[in-house]
């Protein structure tokens, strides 16, 4: 068991681009679920629209990468309006069912044979982010310390993604300390009370849905760029569930909750993966109990268990405040 290697890999994952991408998506979800009390189970659809908005713009339409950003954001707003219009007036669980359905619709359509000319079908698209890497100001070479090493390309993605996380977190902080943010929280606590004070609850919920969706879309941009490829099945429903695990772990309705949650989530996922793999490789765990492919599966078993235990015993997460999570369906 090479502990230096295991801890190094975990640390790399905790500060890597995936952690930043999921932090972005989780910040959006935190706005929905944590601050407004909206049960959005289709956050992955917003990520998928970002990723596909970008890649289709470049790979299919042949436009510049920078055009993909407004296109992706526009798609995201459209989806949020489409989802919100029928459901935001209804009970919270209706939004849950509709959003999860919408996220599967986006994936099914993107992977369908009839869309192969646009989205690449089940193969997806790749090699569309060269323009992003062309503006990389970091000179070539390897950066880091010990076993934590990043190439100049990876470091550029990481820097931009975490930079976006910082900017958006600051934005959420300012918004949540504004009157607008206080209305959102009051809707979460008691929708009828907010309505009786003359607030247009429907409109506030819609604004929250659109804004949080946009953050998810920005996460989708960075996901597509960091992988230089998009594949429809990357954007399936479990991704949304990971975002929930992240915000509940970090602390619901906390500005830095999703950020810390994402770092711990990816660090832990990587830690269990490398540690179990090494334990299996070194023979500490007999292959009759667990083999190489089962390592990957066992960490999802642990993820499910962790999500349940957290929600039962510490629903406020690490940074949370119990008073902030008086979540309940009315």
């Amino acid at each position, binding site marked *: 068991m090479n502990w230096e290697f295991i801890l190094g890999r975990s640390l790399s994952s905790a500060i890597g681009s995936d952690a930043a991408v999921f932090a972005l998506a989780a910040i959006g979800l935190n706005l929905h679920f944590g601050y407004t*009390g909206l*049960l959005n189970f289709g956050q992955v659809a917003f990520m998928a629209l970002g990723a596909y908005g970008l890649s289709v713009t470049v790979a299919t339409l042949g436009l510049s990468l920078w055009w993909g950003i407004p296109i992706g954001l526009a798609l995201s707003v459209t989806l949020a309006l489409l989802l919100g*219009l*029928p*459901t935001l*007036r*209804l*009970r*919270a*669980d*209706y939004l*849950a*069912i*509709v959003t*999860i*359905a*919408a996220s*599967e*619709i986006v994936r*099914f*359509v993107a992977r*369908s*044979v*009839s869309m192969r000319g646009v989205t690449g079908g089940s193969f997806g698209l790749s090699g569309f982010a060269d323009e992003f890497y062309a503006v990389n100001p970091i000179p070539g070479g390897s950066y880091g310390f010990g076993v934590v090493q990043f190439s100049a390309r990876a470091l550029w993605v990481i820097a931009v993604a975490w930079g976006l996380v910082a900017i958006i977190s600051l934005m959420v902080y300012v918004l949540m300390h504004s009157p607008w943010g206080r209305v959102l929280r009051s809707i979460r606590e008691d929708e009828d009370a907010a309505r009786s004070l003359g607030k247009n609850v429907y409109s506030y919920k819609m604004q929250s849905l659109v804004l949080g969706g946009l953050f998810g879309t920005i996460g989708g941009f960075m996901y597509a760029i960091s992988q230089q490829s998009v594949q429809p099945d990357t954007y399936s429903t*479990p991704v949304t*569930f990971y975002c*929930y*695990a992240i915000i*509940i772990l970090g602390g619901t309705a906390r500005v830095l909750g999703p950020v810390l949650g994402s770092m711990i989530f990816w660090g832990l996922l990587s830690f269990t993966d490398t540690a179990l793999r090494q334990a299996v490789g070194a023979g500490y765990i007999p292959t009759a109990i667990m083999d190489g492919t*089962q390592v990957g*599966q*066992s960490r*999802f*078993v642990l*993820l*499910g*268990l*962790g*999500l*349940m*235990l957290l*929600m*039962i015993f510490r*629903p406020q997460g690490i940074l949370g405040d119990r008073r902030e999570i*008086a*979540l*309940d*369906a009315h």
Partner: protein
Amino acid sequence: MIRILVLAAMGCVLLLPATAAQAQQQEGGEAIRGTIVQRPEEGDPVPVPGVDIAVTTGDGEDVGTVTTAEDGSYALELPGPGDYSATLVAETLPEDVQLTDPDRATLEFTIRPGQSRPLLYPLGEAESVGGRFAAFMSRALQLAVEGIKFGLIIAMTAVGLSLIFGTTGLVNFAHGELVTFGAIAAWIINVTFGVHFFLAAILAMGVGALAGGLLDRGLWAPLRRRGTGLIAMLVISIGLSILLRYSFLYFFGGRTRPYGQYAVQRAIEIGPIGIAPKDIIAIVLSLLVLVGVGLILQRTKIGKAMRAVADNRDLAESSGINVERVILFVWAFGAALATLGGVMLGLGEQVSWQMGFQLLLLMFAGVTLGGLGTAYGALLGSIVVGLFIQMSTLVISPELKNVGALLVLIFILLVRPQGILGQAERVG
């Protein structure tokens, strides 16, 4: 350009008198020749003039196109022996004539040295409007039967989901895993222990009911006592769903596996539709089970109590119903039905670790369509969803059939959020 030249050449061939053609055959020239006729059900065959037949070599190289003459005859010299393919250009047929089998417009054949071969194109009468309509109707009928079967499976699994929601308010995202659990339990009893499929299915229902009851007693009842919120419970059910799903993958593996009996069955023809005997049994059995469910809900004391708790928990409790006991029963009952649904699904398309999860959204669609929290609504909504999914492949590509169902779900929420059988009340 080439095509025009070829057509010109064809004209020459057609002008050749029959005797010359016969002479050519004696010289050993390879050719196709024959007569295109339509054979009505009564009366003499009618020649069909002016039909194009395009011929290519086996490698796809163009040989030529020949058009039938006034008497329906055609002949085309071929460059030599070998593989050829001839396509009857369906657009050149008269409007009231059609190939009896549209898939056989292209024939592939081998020409031996000196062989002159006729091509067989069976033509039918008046397929144009009535026949196409009949074909469409028989396909629609076939899909309707498949849709009903699928809808009944969804219905069986959705009753539990709806009753659990009705009695406890929980949107159980782990309900799909109850379906998978049942299917896998039946598979283990059936294949590992070698018990016959029918007995295995019944035993699995018992195991499923036990698992459902244990889930309620071990997890959900304590959470209800702690006063855990509904949204927190919903997130817990998602955690449970992930935990169970990947446990199935861990222990059962990623392969799909068939049951020991009835895995493959030849379809029997009933009128215009083909259906496997196991599907007939599945449909009949599902109907019987669902009628039984209806009787339990309508006639028995516990069934009435279940509906009472689903309708108004506080009122039921104050009129002396032991609500916790009813909820326990709902879990066991719902899980047993989910098990049966999983077994039937596994019979049709084998057992896999995420079969239930893939069904979950369709269950939601059925339950929402029928009216959240009502048992009969779930039945009706699910059958509509199953029918809709299968029938929609008449017009849209089969890979998008679930998209259609989910879009309908969203549309229903837009116009009638309380569902077909739900009470019109303010929801939200």
